[in-house]
C-alpha cells in the first residue's frame, strides 16, 4: 500500500495508527482491569463479586463507564477553575504520552527513543502535577493534604524504583527499551533472575508510585475522604481513574520490559520446529489457550439464565475462536506480523501477571502509616538499592574484565545484597519510632 500515501509522510503513518489504537484500547483495558480487580478481591474474600451486568459481570465496566459519563460534572464554588479543569487532563495525558515509547512487541512501538526508558520515567513522573494541581485547585483541605502526600510519596519512591531499574540497565547497557529486551534475549535469561533484588525494589516502588494499597495514603478513605479526588466527580473523576490504571499498566510494562524479558516468550532459545515447516511448536501454545477458553464459553453459554447473556457468552466464545484463528494465521503470515502478534500476546500476559501481583498485595497487606511509608522508602529501599547497584556493577566488572562466570557473580552479588537487606531490616525493626510521628512532614 506504499503507493497510496506520499512518501514524505510515510514515516509518520504507522506511529499515528499505533497511537490511535492505544488511546482507543486503553480505557477498555482499564475498565476490565477494574473488573478483574473486583473479581480477584471477591475470590480472595470468598465472594462472587459482580455477577449481574452481563454473564459473571462481564459488562460491568461498560455500565460503570456509561454511568460516569452521564453523571453531573460538579465544580466547587471556591475552586480555581482553570487548574481544576487542567489537572485531570494533565494526569491522563502524561499517562498516555508515556505509551509512546512502550514496546508492546518487536514492531509494535510508536517511537524507539534511544532514551526510551528515561522518557517513560520522565513523562510518568509528570503525572504528579495532575494530582498536585487538582488537589490544590479543589480548595479543600482533604484534597490538598492528599495531593501533598502523594507528591511526597512519588518523589521518594521514584528514586528507589529508578535505582532498582538501573541495576537492570547495567546489564542491558542501553536506555532503548528495544535493545534492553534484545539484551535479555542475547544473555539468554530474564533480568529478574539476574537481579531479583532490583526487581523486588522496583515492584514495591511501583506500587507506591501508583498510589496503590498498601501505599494508597493519598486517597486513604479513613483519613482524608478520597484524597486529591475528593472534590472530583463524573467525567473528571473517571479521567483520574483512567490515569491511575494507565499508570499501573505503564509500570507493569516497564517491569515486564526490563525484568521479565519484554515480548520474549518463555525459553526464547528453545526451538523445535514442526516437521517440514519453520513453525516453532511453542508458538502453538497461545492458540491452544484461546481455543480452550472459547470451548469453555460455549459450554457455559446455554446455562446462562437470560437470553441476552447466552448471546453475550457465545459472542465471547466466538471472539476467542477468532483470536486463536489469528494466532494460527499469524504463524503462517509474514515474519513481522508473526513477531508482532506473539510479542504482543506474551507482553500482555506478563503485564497481567504483574498486575495480578498488584491486586494480590493490595488485598493482603494493611495500609501503612505515613511515617512508616517514608521510613521504608528512605531508610530501607534507597540504601538497599544503592548497595544492590554497587554489587551488580562489581559483579558485571568481575564477569567482563576478569572473565568470571557471569551467573556465579550475579548470584554472589544477590546473596551479598540479601545480607545487607536483612541487616537494614533488623536495624529498622530495632528503632521503630513513636506514633506521634504519624502524618509526617
Amino acid at each position, binding site marked *: 500500500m506504499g503507493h497510496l500515501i506520499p512518501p514524505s509522510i510515510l514515516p509518520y503513518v504507522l506511529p499515528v495508527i499505533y497511537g490511535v489504537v492505544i488511546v482507543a484500547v486503553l480505557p477498555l483495558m482499564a475498565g476490565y482491569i477494574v473488573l478483574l480487580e473486583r473479581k480477584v478481591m471477591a475470590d480472595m474474600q470468598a465472594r462472587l463479586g459482580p455477577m449481574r451486568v452481563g454473564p459473571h459481570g462481564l459488562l460491568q465496566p461498560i455500565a460503570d463507564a456509561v454511568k460516569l459519563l452521564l453523571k453531573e460534572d460538579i465544580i466547587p464554588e471556591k475552586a480555581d477553575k482553570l487548574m481544576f479543569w487542567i489537572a485531570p487532563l494533565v494526569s491522563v495525558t502524561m499517562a498516555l504520552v508515556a505509551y509512546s515509547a512502550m514496546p508492546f512487541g518487536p514492531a509494535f512501538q510508536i517511537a524507539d*527513543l534511544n532514551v526510551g526508558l528515561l522518557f517513560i520515567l*520522565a513523562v510518568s*513522573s509528570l503525572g*504528579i502535577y495532575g494530582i*498536585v494541581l487538582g488537589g*490544590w485547585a479543589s480548595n479543600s483541605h482533604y484534597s*490538598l493534604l492528599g495531593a501533598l502526600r502523594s*507528591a511526597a510519596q512519588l*518523589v521518594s519512591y521514584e528514586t528507589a524504583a529508578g535505582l532498582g531499574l538501573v541495576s537492570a540497565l547495567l546489564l542491558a547497557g542501553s536506555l532503548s527499551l528495544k535493545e534492553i529486551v534484545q539484551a535479555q534475549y542475547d544473555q539468554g535469561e530474564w533480568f529478574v533472575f539476574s537481579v531479583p533484588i532490583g526487581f523486588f525494589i522496583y515492584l514495591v516502588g511501583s506500587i507506591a508510585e501508583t498510589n496503590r494499597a498498601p501505599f494508597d495514603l493519598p486517597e486513604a478513605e479513613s483519613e482524608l475522604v478520597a484524597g486529591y479526588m475528593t472534590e472530583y466527580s463524573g467525567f473528571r473523576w473517571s479521567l483520574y481513574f483512567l490515569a491511575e490504571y494507565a499508570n499501573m499498566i505503564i509500570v507493569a510494562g516497564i517491569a515486564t520490559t526490563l525484568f521479565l524479558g519484554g515480548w520474549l516468550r518463555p525459553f526464547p532459545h528453545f526451538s523445535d520446529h514442526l516437521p517440514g515447516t519453520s513453525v516453532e511448536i511453542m508458538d502453538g501454545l497461545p492458540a491452544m489457550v484461546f481455543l480452550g477458553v472459547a470451548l469453555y464459553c460455549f459450554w457455559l453459554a446455554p446455562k446462562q439464565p437470560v437470553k441476552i447473556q447466552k448471546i453475550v457468552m457465545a459472542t465471547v466464545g466466538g471472539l476467542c475462536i477468532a483470536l486463536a484463528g489469528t494466532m494460527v494465521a499469524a504463524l503462517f503470515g509474514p515474519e513481522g506480523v508473526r513477531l508482532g502478534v506473539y510479542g504482543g500476546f506474551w507482553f500482555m500476559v506478563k503485564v497481567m501477571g504483574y498486575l495480578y501481583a498488584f491486586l494480590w498485595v493490595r488485598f493482603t497487606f494493611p495500609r501503612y502509616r505515613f511515617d512508616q511509608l517514608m521510613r521504608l522508602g528512605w531508610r530501607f529501599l534507597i540504601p538497599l538499592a544503592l548497595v544492590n547497584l554497587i554489587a551488580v556493577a562489581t559483579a558485571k566488572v568481575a564477569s567482563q574484565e576478569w572473565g568470571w562466570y557471569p551467573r556465579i557473580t550475579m548470584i554472589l552479588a544477590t546473596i551479598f545484597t540479601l545480607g545487607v537487606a536483612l541487616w537494614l531490616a533488623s536495624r529498622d525493626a530495632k528503632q521503630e519510632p513513636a506514633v506521634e510521628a504519624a502524618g509526617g512532614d
Partner: protein
Amino acid sequence: MALNYILFAFFAVMAIGSSILMVTRRNIIHSAVFLIGALLATAGIFLQLQAEFLFVVQIILYVGGIMVLFVFVIMLVNLDVSMRLVQFNRQKWVAGVLALVLGAQVLFALWVGRGELRLPAPAVDVSPRNTEAIGQALFQHYMLPFEIASILLLVAMIGAVVMAKRRV
C-alpha cells in the same frame, strides 16, 4: 523542511508566551504552571536540537524535580495573603526599561553578527548515541567538574535540610 520550522515556531511561541504569563500572573500557582510550560517547551527545543538526553534530563530534573519542589513550597506558604498585595515593586518601570535596554544591546550584537553562524550540514545520524557521548565526555574529560558538582549538590542538600528544619 517546513515541519522543522513549524516545530521550532510552536515551541518558541509556547516558551515565550508562557514565560511572559509566568512573570505577570498574580497567582503563584499559575506562574509555576506556566513556568512548567516554558520548561517543557525548552525541552522540546532541546529535542529538536537532537539532544535527547538533555531533553529527558530537562523534564526529569527541572519539571519532575525542581518545579515539584516549587509547587510544594508554594502550597506550604500562605498564598491568598500575597495574592491580594501589589505584585510589582517600586522600581518596576525603570527596571523594565533597563531590562529592555539590555535586551536591545544583545539584540544589536546579534544583528551585527547576523548570518555568520551556520549549523553544519546534518550528518546522516548526528551522534545517534547522544547519551553515550555525553557519558564519555562527562566521565572522562569533565570528571573533576562532575565530582565538584556532586559535592555542590551534597552541600545544597545539607543546607536545604538545615534551613527547612523546624525549631532552627
